[in-house]
């Protein structure tokens, strides 16, 4: 009898409405995996562009001198309020400082704040979620009630309360933003751990005698990690927005520092005569967030969530 009857055939004919078929996309070997990932990116121009943007932003954060030779803090007062041109891509501000240079140097501050925020949220929230989901019972109840409370306070209000308590500054703002998204990380991590913990293959491991730590490390965490990583990528984008909103409100780094939100806030005073002071730095922020969100979507999609 042909065992091969099923081989390939099952994949070949996706008959309509066959609910008993949780087919996972075939994960090939690791080397071909890399090549596949490359092809995956190259076939999607939007995604490719996003990756390029992110690489540029990270480069700008570490080596701003690669992009501009002009000083972000020193201006030439006689050359103030120049529109975008070949010598000043983003124009100049009220003190004659080169706006492009300020945006490039601002990447470092903004990126640092964003990473701190995501790290705080990922570590604290992920830990809460995994402990709650894996331990269950009253621990789960207590932790999740706490998370519910955090969720019930609008994120920005929670951040503002933290800023009021901690004071101003890039790092403090970042921690405040991170704390505000702890709750959603805890939620997702817990939901994933619960989902995987109830999967048949985990019970199969349990019934074949595996101990709890081996179940957690071998089965639960690797299978639950995906959505949390996707959330972290998405959270990069929303953290950039939240950090820049707080620095726009004036709680970020003190004035001369070229934080992205602060740049836009400064430009606000000259809205009627120098549009580029707000429009172009904002464009940089929007492009970065858009790029991270696109990458997050691709990560999510690769896990087979989207058709």
């Amino acid at each position, binding site marked *: 009898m042909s065992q091969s009857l099923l081989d390939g055939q099952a994949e070949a004919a996706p008959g309509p409405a066959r609910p008993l078929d949780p087919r996972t996309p075939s994960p090939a070997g690791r080397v071909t995996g890399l090549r596949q990932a490359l092809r995956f990116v190259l076939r999607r121009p939007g995604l490719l562009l996003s990756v390029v943007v992110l690489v540029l932003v990270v480069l700008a954060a570490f080596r701003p001198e690669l992009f501009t030779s002009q000083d972000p803090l020193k201006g030439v007062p006689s050359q103030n309020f120049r529109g975008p041109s070949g010598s000043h891509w983003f124009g100049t501000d009220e003190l004659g400082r080169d706006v492009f240079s300020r945006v490039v140097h601002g990447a470092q501050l903004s990126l640092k704040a964003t990473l701190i925020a995501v790290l705080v949220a990922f570590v604290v929230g992920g830990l809460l979620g995994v402990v709650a989901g894996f331990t269950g019972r009253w621990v789960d109840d207590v932790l999740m009630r706490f998370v519910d409370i955090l969720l019930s*306070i*609008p*994120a*920005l209000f929670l951040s*503002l309360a933290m800023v009021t*308590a901690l004071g101003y500054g890039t790092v403090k703002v970042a921690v405040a933003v991170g704390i505000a998204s702890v709750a959603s990380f805890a939620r997702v991590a817990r*939901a994933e751990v619960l989902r995987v913990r109830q999967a048949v293959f985990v019970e199969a491991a349990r019934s074949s005698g595996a101990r709890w730590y081996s179940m957690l490390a071998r089965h639960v965490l690797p299978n639950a990690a995906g959505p949390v990583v996707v959330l972290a990528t998405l959270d990069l984008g929303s953290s950039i927005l939240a950090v820049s*909103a707080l620095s726009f409100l004036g709680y970020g780094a003190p004035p001369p520092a070229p934080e992205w939100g602060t740049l836009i806030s400064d430009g606000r005073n000259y809205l009627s005569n120098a549009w580029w002071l707000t429009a172009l730095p904002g464009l940089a922020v929007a492009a970065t967030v858009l790029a991270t969100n696109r990458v997050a979507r691709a990560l999510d999609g690769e896990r087979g969530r989207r058709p």
Partner: protein
Amino acid sequence: MRRYVIKRLAQAVGVLWAAYTVSFLVLDFLPGDPVSAMAGAGMDSGQVDPARIAALRHEYGFDKPVLAQYADHLGRALRGDFGDAVSTGRPVTATLADALPQTLRLTGAALLLAAVLGGGLAVLATYTSRRWLRQLLLSLPPLGVSVPTFWVGLLLVEAFSFRLHWFPAFGNDGLRGLVLPALTLAIPTGAQVAQVLAKSLLTALDQAYVETARAKGAGRWRVHLRHALRNASLPALTVVGLLVGQLIAGSVVVETVFSRDGLGRVTAAAVTAQDIPLVQGVVVFGALIFVSVNLIVDLVYPLLDPRIVVASDRRAGIA
């Protein structure tokens, strides 16, 4: 049903109490010395008068043990008394009550706009059979959630106030003054509504009952609106409930951008002045609105979804 309502009400009260506790912990404990922070607020120089510190310490009960302070504060909060704002000396509750109507108008308009724009976009994008139109429409929501709100607001002001002179750039004047701020606030919210609704519409259209409906001979529009949308709107409704908190908080930024009076401006000023009682009032108040809206959503939900007769924990499943 009555049990369900009572249970939800009790949960809402519990969450509010806990939110108060969290705000108490954050605001009264985290700062090394809240009193010197408060004493310093409202003064221009860093000079702090020791006599003033002692007076404040006594006034706010910081000379008492922590638990006593907490019990004292909570007791007063229950009566609606959050103390006086340090910067102005007015009662916190009165300050918030004065600012509230403007903000409610703004967020209400934004919510309406977000639901109409976001919902319409999702329905149209999933209905159209033109590939390019679908692609175009579906690419808008990701854009909407990626742009900084304050930046969009400033661009709108630049375009519609300074160039075209259609709408006023600043202030609280009438309906015309409401258009730009409400639009600014609605863009990220509407984008999220569109994302969730489009996704759940696509899921719903994939379900077997849609095939049953089509096999009956139902047309596409009928299948789309009467079968798919009815089911897909349930998760979207939950999301709208969750987004209300975001709208209220978003008013901080939008009211600053458009120099409108309201809760958001009060909040921004309170944080700048490190006015702890006022910030605490705002946080608890934000939670109150959020919890109330979600309570309403929870109570409406069983009316829309016959499967939820005794809901144990719906949102946990969806999030």
